[in-house]
């Protein structure tokens, strides 16, 4: 997987973090983020971001066992993080750790 595919936007990062330990459906991801006081992702941006992550191979989806919703006939999908998704999160965390630890080289030392 190319390096650019592992780059994450802040929203994608928090979505991946929500999926790190459990498979979840969309509303559950929002609830997980919100109940932990995190930045609330706009409802309308959650699903486009999930699809982008899926296209990049960072998450994969599977149909839930629940029956289709009575009015719209829509089914529920569960999302699960992939190994590449975990790697993308690790890269982000390494970057943050690297930024925190960086010190300028002392001149003339």
């Amino acid at each position, binding site marked *: 997987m190319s390096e650019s595919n592992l780059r994450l936007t802040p929203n994608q990062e928090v979505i991946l973090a929500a999926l790190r330990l459990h498979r979840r459906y*969309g*509303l559950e991801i929002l609830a997980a983020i919100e109940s932990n006081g995190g930045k609330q992702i706009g*409802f309308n941006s959650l*699903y486009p971001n999930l699809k982008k992550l899926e296209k990049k191979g960072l998450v994969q*989806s599977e149909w839930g066992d629940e029956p289709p*919703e009575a*009015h*719209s006939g829509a*089914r529920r999908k569960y999302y699960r993080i992939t190994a590449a998704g975990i790697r993308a999160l690790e890269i982000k965390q390494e970057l943050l750790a690297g930024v925190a630890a960086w010190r300028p080289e002392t001149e003339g030392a």
Partner: protein
Amino acid sequence: MNEKDIELAERTGQFARRFPQVWQEYQDWLRAIVSSREELQQRYSQGLASLIFRWRLLYFGLYVAAMAGRQALVQSLHQVSKRQSKRAAVPVLEQGALTTQSLQIKRTHFILQRIATLLAVAELTLCGLAAITGVMLAFYYQPTAVGAHASLHAIAYQITNGNLILSLHNIAGNGLIILALVQIVVMFLGRQFMRSWLTAWISGICLALATIGLSWTAIILNWDQTGFWRFKIELSIIGSLPAGSFLREVLAGGSAINTLTLQHMYTLHSYILAIAALLLSVIHLTAHIFQEKSWAQTAPESWCSSEDTSTI
């Protein structure tokens, strides 16, 4: 939340099911919208909850429609490029020769694509420069028959840096025409390699037309002998076209060339065409960046690194 909201959700579902591929991908979004209504009711007043619910449904519907449109466009472009590649295929060539040819085509594509993107950047820069200098000139320019020539003379010889600004405006305008025309040629040469050139192609042609229009409307703005007589001749040519008298009326504001003509030309030049050219150059550059990004995914690393293309 009333029955109407539920009915709206049903209708949105019916609409989305018209596009099976998109529905397959995004139906869980609609389910989430419907499932979220109870929470909305608890959090907000009935009116506001209903408003948010409807907004979410509307956004979903628009998104689905946009995705369906995009898929249809991609499919049709894919079919067109498939047909073209079938026509271009030479059956007698051996496999090795075909691979080499394919690499050469990709290499040519890369060069043409990169040139086109750079030209689009240059066009936008010139357009911006012409706009900024144009605004500066507008501070002193008087679009009247009596004042036009005198005000330009004052800009050129009396106002600080006026000559520099006027020259930059002229150079940017003329440079823009040249680049827009060169760009059309570059895109024409690369047409068989370009995947989604339609936006870039059409915006490029419109940009070239807008720049020529800008140059033409500037003829009379100098209000000198050359400009006046040239405009008079060209206006009479326009007048002889079908519906020419109407066009002449719109462009010149009557049969004579006077202050009204100057004001018409000034408005067309400074507001309509200048804004159109700026918008078109932005669209044109955006289209090229997207094109280059999609192309860079398949290009060998040695031709262009993904870092390079992603930062343009």
